[in-house]
């Protein structure tokens, strides 16, 4: 067999036994075969293999397979949905998408700036006003901050109000 690689007609031998050669190719191969015993033997050997394959026993299609196919074809699409969802071919891409969405949301969440804490000012001001009225907070002990300046301004405004 390996020695046949030397022969330029080698690849055409199978095509010859399959009846798949053009007229010009066929006559060229046949001319070669007339002179080459080795290729004639090769043709016979390939022809034998072809006949073995052609004679391979045929298997009848299982009857339940026919009814399964017909039943699947008659089943409306909405009834096939659970099967579709449970099928690996759906499950795997869906799982991959879900994992991707999770990673993306975590990434976006990590990049997002933390929102400033909201401290309601009104209760603080009213508490301060109450404590000030009760002289619980000495005027000079307030720490300088945005809130303290607002509170001071608020307290000044109250002081300026006419009685």
């Amino acid at each position, binding site marked *: 067999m390996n020695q046949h690689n030397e022969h330029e007609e080698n690849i055409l031998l199978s*095509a010859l036994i399959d009846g798949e050669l053009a007229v010009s190719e066929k006559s060229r191969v046949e001319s070669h075969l007339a002179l080459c015993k080795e290729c004639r033997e090769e043709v016979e050997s390939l022809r034998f293999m072809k006949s073995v*394959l052609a004679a*391979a026993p045929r298997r009848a299609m299982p009857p339940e397979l026919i009814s399964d196919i017909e039943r699947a074809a008659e089943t409306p699409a909405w009834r096939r949905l659970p099967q579709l969802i449970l099928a690996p071919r759906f499950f795997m891409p869906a799982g991959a998408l879900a994992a991707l969405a999770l990673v993306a949301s975590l990434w976006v969440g990590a990049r997002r700036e933390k929102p400033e804490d909201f401290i309601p000012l009104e209760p603080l001001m009213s508490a301060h006003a109450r404590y000030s009225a009760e002289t619980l907070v000495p005027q000079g002990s307030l720490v300088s901050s945005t809130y303290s300046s607002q509170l001071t301004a608020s307290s000044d405004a109250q002081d300026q109000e006419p009685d």
Partner: protein
Amino acid sequence: MARKPEISFSELIAKHGEKAYNFAYRLSGNEHDARDLVQGAYAKAYAHFKDYDPNRPFDSWLCRILHNIYLDGVRLYAHGHVVSLDAPAPVDDSSWDEILPGDDPDPTAGLTRKEEDAFLQKALNSVPVHYRTAVTLCDVEGLSYEEISKIMACPVGTVRSRIHQGRALIREAYEKLERSGRKLQ
């Protein structure tokens, strides 16, 4: 313009199912995967039935779908057990017709045929999928190179080359198996 022939899907199953099943069996090497392949191919064919041109052979269209499903399976489970290229031949995967006693006057002849078929399937399993597909379609299903090129989506020249090389490889494997089988007897 040719009028589309009225043909039901059930008729197409009855008419071409056997061919599709045998092709699937020779590709996958066992009944279980062959069933899955045929069912998958028909389901896909049914879903895209509107795209089918009734003026072209349905069996070629179906075999092409089946072949694509098989290749997808091979790619997905390249090292798995379902469609492994190195899977052993299904010598124990017999139908009830083969197991139950029949009216064969010479039961040993049946055994030999079964053994031969097992060797043949092993030989088919031992060659790469493109060779196996081309040779199966040509020798087992009797399709022309032109039809095979459409199913395998490759030029006729490639089909010719795959059939020749595939047939030679299968022959080599088959002869080897036969020799080893004879030695065991």
